[in-house]
């Protein structure tokens, strides 16, 4: 729509100001987190609060990083997120390729099973998974943290949606050129699927990095906690140390915010492609 007369232009200014206000309100809590984290450790519980830290310092961050196991929580989170993402992206690309481009007995049935199970609340699996992990002696271990994360049906759906858009002639051409099935997948499909793989990878990583309930249940020693669980325990232990807590929250939030700012377009694309319609 073109801005052609005075009335529409005024309307534009008004909506611009409204949008800025709403965006500021939505981002204010994150800003407040950073401001609190940058305060002097003693200042945070003094009144009145400061909108801009008059004397910013990283003291809260160094106090947070010096706490026991913080480094371990961070490496745990990183390791688990990377492992789950790697396996998910690869197995989902394989399965999505078969569902998108191959006809096989039972294929539709299995795919509808995946779709239908996206509606099942994950919490239904908590107790049985806990019992399985306990039987396998995987409680409080990396296996227990990683394995359930690999099983989500969402990735298969997302990859199928992406790969269905690739022209089938490409696969036929590859086969005529003498590529085997596996070669076709690795040499032709995977390179073309890169944007889709990136979207799935980013969303899987984000989901794992932020996951809370399962790591809370499956771990119980302080050294096996992930960053979100560790932060929640810290909140319990030192509920009034807001400077320290906000420094920890900022520390855990920054990797995802950086990834988001770097790969924005994949995030926005993933939301639209991932939406299941009818």
């Amino acid at each position, binding site marked *: 729509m073109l801005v052609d007369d005075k009335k529409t232009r005024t309307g534009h200014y008004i909506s*611009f100001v409204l949008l800025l206000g709403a965006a500021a309100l939505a981002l204010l809590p994150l800003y407040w987190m950073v401001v609190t984290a940058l305060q002097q450790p003693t200042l945070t519980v003094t009144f009145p*609060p400061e909108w801009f830290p008059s004397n910013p310092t990283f003291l809260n961050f160094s106090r947070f990083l010096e706490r026991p196991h913080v480094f371990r929580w961070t490496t745990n989170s990183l390791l688990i997120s990377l492992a789950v993402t790697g396996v998910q992206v690869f197995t989902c690309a394989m399965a999505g390729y078969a569902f998108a481009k191959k006809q096989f007995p039972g294929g539709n049935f299995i795919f509808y099973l995946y779709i239908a199970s996206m*509606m099942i609340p994950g*919490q239904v699996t908590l107790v*049985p998974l806990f019992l399985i992990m306990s039987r396998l002696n995987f409680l409080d271990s990396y296996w227990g943290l990683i*394995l359930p994360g690999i099983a989500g049906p969402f990735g298969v759906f997302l990859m199928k949606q992406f790969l269905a858009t690739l022209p089938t002639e490409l696969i036929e051409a590859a086969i005529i050129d003498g590529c085997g099935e596996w070669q076709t997948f690795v040499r032709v499909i995977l390179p073309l699927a890169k944007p889709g793989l990136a979207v799935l990878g980013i969303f899987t990583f984000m989901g794992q*990095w932020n996951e809370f309930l399962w790591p809370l249940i499956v771990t119980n020693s302080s050294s096996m906690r992930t960053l979100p669980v560790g932060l929640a325990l810290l909140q319990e232990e030192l509920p009034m140390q807001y400077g320290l807590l906000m420094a920890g929250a900022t520390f855990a939030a920054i990797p*995802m915010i950086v990834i*988001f700012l770097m790969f924005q377009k994949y995030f926005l694309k993933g939301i639209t492609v991932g939406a299941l319609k009818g």
Partner: protein
Amino acid sequence: MVALRQLGKRVFKARWAYFFILPNLIFYAVFFLLPVAWSMVLSFLDYQWWGIEFVGFANYSKVFADPIFWKAVVNTAYYTLGVVPLWLGKALIISALIFPFRKPLQTFFKAAFYLPHVTSAVILSMIWLWIYNPPFGLLNYVLGFFGVDPVAWLGNTLTAMPSLILMQVVMGGGSSIVLISAAMNGIPTYLYEAAELDGARPFQVFMRVTLPLLKPTLLYLVVTGTINSFQVFTNIYLMTRGGPQFSTTTIVYMIYDTAFKQFQFGPASAMAMVLFVLTAIFALVQFRWLGQEVEY
């Protein structure tokens, strides 16, 4: 016999397809389908470390006789009815405001509203605990200028749940905005031009043209938003622990508490089945509604 052999042939011909789905299918079967099935079985068992016993519907009758479970169901409904309409209304208004602007500005606002979504619910809960803090928090400080006395937002039964809802509405809506904007951009411009030629005012265009065409997207968002709100846990765990006086105990919080604090796996599984059935009802409603696609 012939049919069986033919099926065998077709399966053999498609062996690569099975090879491609197999790795994912194994993980999915062992760590998702099997647990779901086992959860159903568990809801009929008395599961103790010294032995397992079939108890029929005893877990269900125990759960349904528990007034706190009904309170959790009501609280979950309260939370959902609070969050979903406000959050969707916010997303709709913001998408409509964003729409007339140029692409880069649209992207800027979409990114700004989506940003809180990339941080975990743990972090957002920690921030809001600080904002809601009765003596020193930001909210009471700001309200103090208007002469409002400090309120223990999370500490009394009247304001605890609305405070949890408010937090979700202020921070949420980012992905809905992206989806609604995408749907709005998909509406053909000639429809707007025709409406303008007919002398429709912008508000009329929005109500009569845009809104009806957004129906599938909005219904999708209502259903997924409802299902997500049914599953709220992290905020409750960090901010209120279901209190005060069970005023913020939701179904999932109660499943967690029953299974992993009291180790009553049977009743916890029965509760999980109730959650499953409630979610399934909403999912089916979605499929019924969205079955009728809108045509341009």
